[in-house]
């Protein structure tokens, strides 16, 4: 009752295979999009953007990227932090080398460069699977962080070894640096998030996505129906790294402004994004958003409840957060391996009939 699909009939295949075949879903999606694009930019302030919206939007892109690789193609990766670092350093080098080019181009190019690096580190996936592939990508993680620490060319020989984003604009609006406005950085990240989600959705619902899922579910059968495993896996690595590179570039250039690679893009970042897609839901774009929102909101919520209301010491709350996330990972892996996205699907199925039993 609450969740209505009555009266929705698809009469063409195009209608049947759209992203939101049910009217109710479609209108809600338009409403969310409208609020995000035309309401929030006019009311946000720095606090909201920096503590909630920006990390959510950027992590959502990274989660979509990793979900394509892990959730859709079944190739486990622990190199997310390293690939985000590639995106960050690529955008830094581009920003300093070509100061007049729009930030849009820089971020997209950073994604393309990361895609190339991702393909390179994806090559071992042809020979090794599962656990062993995870370890190989772990090597990528440590190697990349080491590379950016040790080769001064990457941080333009700065004394501190850090990279910091110079002031750059797009269409005359300041996007990076210290003097940006909240609505501008928010909108910039939002555009990339929407772009990533739409592209990811289009790829995963078509033949490319089916190739990835075929490889994930049974690689031998995939090969027999005509999927070239080499190409399928490498395209998954490329597309995944493309999104992760974009998120890394945004994370550095817009969200943080200055980055010390070992601290920001270390192994903990890889795990954070992996936890997002496990909690959110493997193999689901919506799950990527749900997981990112959950893990961005959780610390903020805990801080409000623990520190502000109950007056606990900050370090206890910080440790509590680790305990809760760890426990949740275990709970989700056992009880609902498909994460929040599956819970949402089940809820929708129940809501179709609620409050009637049949």
């Amino acid at each position, binding site marked *: 009752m609450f969740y209505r699909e009555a009266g929705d009939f698809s009469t*063409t*295949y*195009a209608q049947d*295979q759209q992203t939101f075949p049910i009217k109710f879903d479609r209108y809600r999606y338009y409403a969310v999009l409208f609020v995000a694009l035309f309401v929030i930019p006019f009311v946000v302030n720095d606090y909201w953007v920096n503590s909630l919206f920006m990390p959510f939007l950027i992590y959502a892109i990274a989660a979509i990227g990793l979900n394509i690789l892990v959730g859709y193609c079944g190739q486990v990766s622990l190199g997310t932090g390293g690939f985000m670092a590639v995106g960050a350093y690529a955008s830094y080098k581009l920003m300093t080398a070509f100061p007049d080019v729009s930030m849009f181009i820089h971020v997209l190019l950073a994604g393309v460069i990361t895609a190339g690096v991702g393909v390179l580190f994806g090559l071992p996936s042809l020979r090794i699977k599962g656990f062993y592939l995870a370890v190989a990508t772990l090597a990528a993680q440590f190697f990349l962080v080491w590379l950016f620490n040790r080769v001064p060319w990457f941080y333009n020989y700065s004394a501190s070894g850090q990279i910091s984003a110079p002031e750059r604009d797009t269409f005359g609006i300041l996007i990076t640096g210290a003097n940006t406005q909240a609505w501008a950085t928010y909108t910039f990240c939002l555009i990339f998030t929407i772009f990533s989600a739409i*592209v990811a959705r*289009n*790829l995963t*619902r*078509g*033949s*490319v996505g*089916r*190739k990835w*899922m*075929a490889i*994930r*579910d*049974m690689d*031998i*059968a*995939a*090969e*027999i*129906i*005509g*999927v*070239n*495993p080499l190409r399928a896996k490498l*395209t998954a690595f490329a*597309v995944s790294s493309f999104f992760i590179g974009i998120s890394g570039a945004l994370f550095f250039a817009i969200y943080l402004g200055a980055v010390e690679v070992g601290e920001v893009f270390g192994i903990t970042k890889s795990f954070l994004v992996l936890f997002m897609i496990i909690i959110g839901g493997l*193999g689901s774009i919506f799950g990527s958003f749900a997981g990112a929102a959950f893990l961005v909101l959780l610390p903020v919520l805990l801080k409000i409840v623990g520190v502000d209301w109950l007056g606990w010491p900050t370090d206890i709350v910080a440790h509590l957060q680790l305990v809760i996330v760890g426990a949740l990972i275990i709970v989700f892996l056992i009880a609902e391996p498909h994460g929040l996205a599956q819970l949402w699907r089940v809820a929708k199925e129940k809501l179709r009939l609620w409050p009637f039993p049949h």
Partner: protein
Amino acid sequence: MLDQTESYTTEDGRTIGPVVMEMKNITLRFGGVEAIKDISFDIREGEIRAIIGPNGAGKSSMLNVISGFYVPQEGEVWYKGSRRPPMKPYQVAEQGIARTFQNIALFEGMSVLDNVMTGRLTHMKTGMFWQSIWKGKAEREEIENREVAERIIDFLEIQAIRKTPVARLPYGLKKRVELARALAAEPTILLLDEPMAGMNVEEKEDMSRFILDVNDEFGTTIALIEHDMGVVMDLSDRVVVMDYGKKIGDGTPAEVRNNQDVIDAYLGVAHD
């Protein structure tokens, strides 16, 4: 002996075309074990060709040679009049050879419709760029192939479950979905590895009907492995019999049934 390029008509009025695939002196070894020993046979266009034999005779290995999983140490595979170089399975699929597996190999995480649509992958060529935009080229291609997939779904009477995740289906239906996926590729040759294994009589009858219909309506050449003798003798036009990796019989069901070697292999022979 019939000419390779000639067609002929069987006693019950079926027209069998020229040879489309020929195996010449295939030998396949795993280390010291010879799984297939110097076997030659051909498959003609439009026929239903059965490969039978006791357990471990090398039937599945033969199918794996045809579909490119195994590369034989000796011998040649001729397909559509030319010698086939050693190929990867996905290249064989591109050439129009589809197959099903003995123990179902469906994509459990996907719906029935998606599984059938994966069968269309060799026909879908739109690049990644157009797919990421979706509107236009990619959507058109998707709809065209969806129409073919829906025809197959209709044909095999699985419309009602098209959006169901495959993992939820019972065994018999899974077998049918796997057949649908192979058929969706519109193959020249369809290889069926024990399509009726583990089925009850009614399911076997259904499956036999589908196999005959496929052969009849789409003109698909079918090569199948099956243990149920009744089914094999009823369905197939010609039968290859294997035992211990060797070919011991080849011919129409009636010929094979009266072949002394075949009787010995199946019923056992007294060693005195």
